[in-house]
């Protein structure tokens, strides 16, 4: 807590034949944050481009497998990966099986598409024949009309007008009969001598002709019966093909799922191996490991490499040389609060982790601003519901549940202190004060709270600067020792006269000296550390710049402190808002209907207050954390610890 996990820099040298085994052992433990090969000097020059190339291959296979599963209606589920991953060998095996399965699927799906299309076409033919049925003449006669040429077929609805515009050279008649989807069934007629023109125009309008094979003979009625029979037969074949496709899906579902898991694993391995250093058949796997995990990693690596591995552990390079990743280790209570910190930035390895501080102060400040026993309990219950993971669709918000619960509890405690329940101010006695009745005391208390929080910020800055062995930041920074003392001195200069102790001139002298030390911070530090020259800028420029820096520091002390007035102001606003809801409810008429409406207004008003005001208060709290508190000590320029891991897979008996 407060301090990120201690890291060691680990270099693993292994022979190229063992690299996949070693990499899998490293990945399976999930404790090593890899360094990029580009940072490894000579080792980064020959890094395995083959692995970089394979990354896109695995990604392509992954996409193909997922598309195939989607076509077959196979859901993605966890699968057992038989045996160890074999990134090099898997490429060929997966490609071969994938091609074979895809061929089978293509054959069946193309057959399904063709049959569906045929059935649709025969359906349309049947409809056209139904129109001709009353004629009771042979279709053979229709095909051999002496003077009139007739074509039946479907074409895209959008092409019909253009088709008619194109037929400007011949007399014709086109009768649209029936619309199916975006196509329309048409009968087109023209004189026999114009048949070639009509035919070419229809073809270019994408007509799909409904040509009847010669075996269909007889009247339209007879042929229609035969066509209907054909539709039945093709529908049966379609059903059989779909069943075959379904069986195929069932047969290959397991294999595809395993393939997907395997390819994902291979993909992750390739991504990792592209980051390894390589020279003369030896791979260098370099990265950062939490120091307490190093023995476990060493044991696992040496076990799989059979002794053909060199394992070196050292302390990480100092700041400025390489960025050491940050692993935060907060307990289950504070872990969800890490999101509040990481939204601002990841703590640097040599910084303080402000998560616990944020966890406590966030809930406290939220409670002060949104003090209401009823609304707080609602929020707390909502938090408990989220934490319980009882509603599956809200499972991903389980972490936020802790935040809701903490803020809700804090809100209810302050609600009890303010004597407020769902905005009703006279239901319970106030254990401390009622915001609307004692505004000055509330605002002063808020500023007092702010002073405490800001002092915590000063302390956090001092600890961080001391950890970083930064003398200037420790002693002469506006948030360092001199800054803290100046803040207290200025506080004393304001408070002592107000409390009736008169003007402490000696304290004013101390404040001037401290301000001077802040101004002279840089040359003083350079003097202490023996650096020359003492001034890095001309004297005039230095004086002007450092004067305004100190002036800005004094102003920021004041503004940072006064910023906490909003704690009390929002508490007052909450009471005011609740009062508005009650006034609105009170304006409704009497009688049973009025009573029901009043209840509705009160419930809706409170829900709106919990939702909107809760959101605004949360934003204000975050603002106080980020700008007033974090500004004192937190840079957030760290890199999160992201260990090499494999995707979540279950492995078979010989698995990882």
């Amino acid at each position, binding site marked *: 807590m407060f301090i990120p996990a201690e890291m060691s820099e680990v270099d693993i040298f292994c022979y190229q034949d063992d690299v996949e085994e070693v990499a899998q052992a490293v990945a399976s433990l999930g404790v090593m944050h890899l360094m990029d090969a580009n940072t490894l000097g000579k080792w980064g020059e020959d890094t395995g481009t083959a692995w970089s190339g394979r990354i896109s291959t695995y990604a*392509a296979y992954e*996409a*193909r497998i997922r*598309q*195939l599963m989607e076509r077959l209606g196979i859901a993605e589920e966890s699968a057992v990966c038989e045996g160890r991953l074999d990134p090099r060998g898997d490429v060929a095996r997966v490609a071969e099986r994938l*091609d074979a399965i*895809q*061929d089978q699927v*293509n054959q069946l*799906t*193309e057959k399904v*598409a*063709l049959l569906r*299309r045929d059935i649709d076409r025969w359906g349309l033919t049947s409809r056209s024949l139904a129109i001709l049925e009353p004629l009771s003449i042979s279709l053979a006669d229709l095909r051999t009309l002496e003077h009139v040429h007739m074509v039946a077929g479907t*074409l*895209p609805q*959008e*092409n019909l*007008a*253009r*088709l008619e*515009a*194109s*037929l*400007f*050279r011949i007399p014709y008649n086109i009768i649209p009969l029936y619309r199916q989807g*975006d*196509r329309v069934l048409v009968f087109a007629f023209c004189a026999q001598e114009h048949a070639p*023109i009509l035919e*070419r*125009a229809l*073809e*270019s*309008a*994408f*007509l*799909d*002709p409904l040509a009847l094979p010669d075996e269909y003979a007889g009247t339209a009625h007879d042929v229609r019966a035969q066509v209907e029979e054909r539709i039945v037969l093709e529908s049966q074949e379609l059903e059989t093909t779909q069943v075959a496709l379904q069986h195929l899906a069932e047969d290959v579902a397991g294999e595809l799922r395993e393939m997907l898991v395997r390819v994902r694993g291979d993909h992750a391995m390739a991504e990792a191996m592209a980051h390894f250093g390589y020279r003369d058949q030896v791979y260098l796997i370099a990265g950062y490991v939490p120091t307490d995990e190093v023995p476990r990693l060493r044991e696992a690596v040496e076990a799989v490499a059979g002794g053909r591995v060199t394992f070196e552990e050292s302390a990480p390079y100092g700041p400025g040389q390489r960025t050491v990743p940050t692993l935060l280790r907060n307990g289950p209570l504070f872990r969800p609060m890490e999101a509040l910190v990481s939204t601002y930035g990841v703590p640097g390895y040599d910084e303080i982790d402000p998560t616990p501080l944020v966890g406590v102060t966030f809930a406290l400040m939220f409670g002060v601003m949104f003090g209401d026993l009823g609304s707080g309990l609602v929020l707390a219950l909502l938090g408990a519901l989220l934490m319980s993971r009882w509603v599956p669709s809200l499972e991903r918000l389980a972490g936020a549940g802790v935040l809701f619960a903490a803020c809700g509890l804090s809100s209810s405690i302050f609600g009890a202190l303010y004597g407020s329940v769902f905005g009703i101010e006279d239901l319970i006695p106030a254990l401390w004060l009622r915001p609307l009745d004692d505004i000055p005391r509330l605002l002063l208390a808020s500023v007092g709270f702010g002073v405490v929080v800001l002092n915590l910020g000063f302390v956090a800055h001092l600890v961080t600067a001391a950890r970083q062995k930064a003398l200037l930041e420790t002693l002469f920074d506006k948030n360092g020792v001199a800054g803290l003392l100046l803040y207290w001195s200025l506080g004393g200069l304001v408070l002592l006269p107000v409390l009736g102790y008169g003007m402490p001139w000696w304290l004013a002298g101390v404040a001037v000296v401290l301000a001077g030390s802040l101004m002279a911070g840089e040359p003083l530090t350079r003097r202490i550390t023996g650096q020359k020259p003492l001034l890095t800028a001309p004297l005039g420029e230095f004086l002007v710049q450092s004067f305004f820096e100190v002036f800005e520091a004094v102003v920021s002390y004041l503004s940072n402190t006064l910023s906490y007035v909003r704690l009390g102001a929002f508490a007052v606003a909450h009471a005011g808002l609740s009062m508005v809801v009650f006034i609105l409810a009170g304006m409704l008429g009497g009688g049973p209907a009025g009573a029901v409406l009043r209840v509705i207004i009160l419930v809706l008003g409170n829900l709106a207050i919990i939702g909107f005001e809760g959101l605004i208060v949360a934003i204000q709290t975050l603002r106080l954390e980020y700008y007033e508190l974090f500004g004192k000590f937190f840079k957030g320029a760290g890199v999160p610890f992201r260990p090499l891991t494999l995707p979540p897979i279950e492995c078979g008996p010989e698995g990882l």
Partner: protein
Amino acid sequence: MAGMAGAFLPSPMAAARMAGANARVRGLAARLLSDAQWDDLLRAEGFRGALELLATTGYAEALAPLVGEANPSLRRVERQLWAASARNCWRAGALVQGTARSVFRAWWQHWELENLKTVFRGVHHGLDHQAVRDLLIPLEQRPGLPWDALLHESTVLGLIERTDGTHYVNPLRNAIPAYLRDETLFAIEVALDVRYYRDVAQAVQRLSGADRAPAQLLLETYIDILNVLWAYRYRIYYGLSPEEIVNYTLWRTWHTDADLVRDIALGASPQDVVARIWGDWRVDLSPLEGLAEGQMLPLLEKTLERYWRGLAVKAKRGFPFGMGVLLGYVILDELECRDVVRALEGKAIGWSPERIRQVLVRGEE
């Protein structure tokens, strides 16, 4: 633009976005080749020399993937250049919002369409999927089609089914009977083109206010040009009947319609057609006088392309917070890319600088 150039009093956010987009485009436009660079390119020693010179210009990023290759093929270089142009088009539209962004995305899709046609050609001619992949323009932007699945299809019908769920599937399905009948991809490519350019025109029509005018001038003029050129090509190169020509072109564009296409199909001269569309003073077709139809068409194409480029140059110099600047750049970039490809092809076959200059769309600036 959802919001911006559509009104002269834009919201602050829209104005900021448009200012950002303009700043980005001005940065990108600075990478276009200068006259001096063009002169150097045309005088460069052969294909290799031209390539080395291009690597010192704004095309360095495009050619970066080829660094280290001893002799990159012309085809590979061309695909990298097209990819760069597609990337620039995407970047130019990335900062605008709403219907304006839809126009940029719709226009960008012509790169995707080129790749889709390449896949169809590859599958139709039985090429191996890796061979087809090597022919594709390497587009980095978000794919709208399942390329891996498409590349692994072995039949044209299978390919069509794999486009299910995209806006390409209906025109493709409509072209199936013609494909099965003729066993050529002509109908499929026509169906794709007609559908695509209709979509672009619709995207332009959805723009509002002051955004629509420059988009119409630049993009719908191009669609007009295409429609006219298609009609001439179908008549002169393919010998299609007037009915087929009407059916294989766009039904109605900004300045063309079935009547005009029908007149072209029946033998109207380019001078008459161009005068009807744009007026005879805007496009000078006097060099076409007396030429046979087969010789006339390439010159007509070049002249209309130059007219289009002129519109883009004007638009790029126009109102600095409008769509015109952005689209003008996109078109100039693409036309320059076409010219660079032509110049490289000319270099590869040993043409003189003067001979290459004749086939370029850009004139003396």
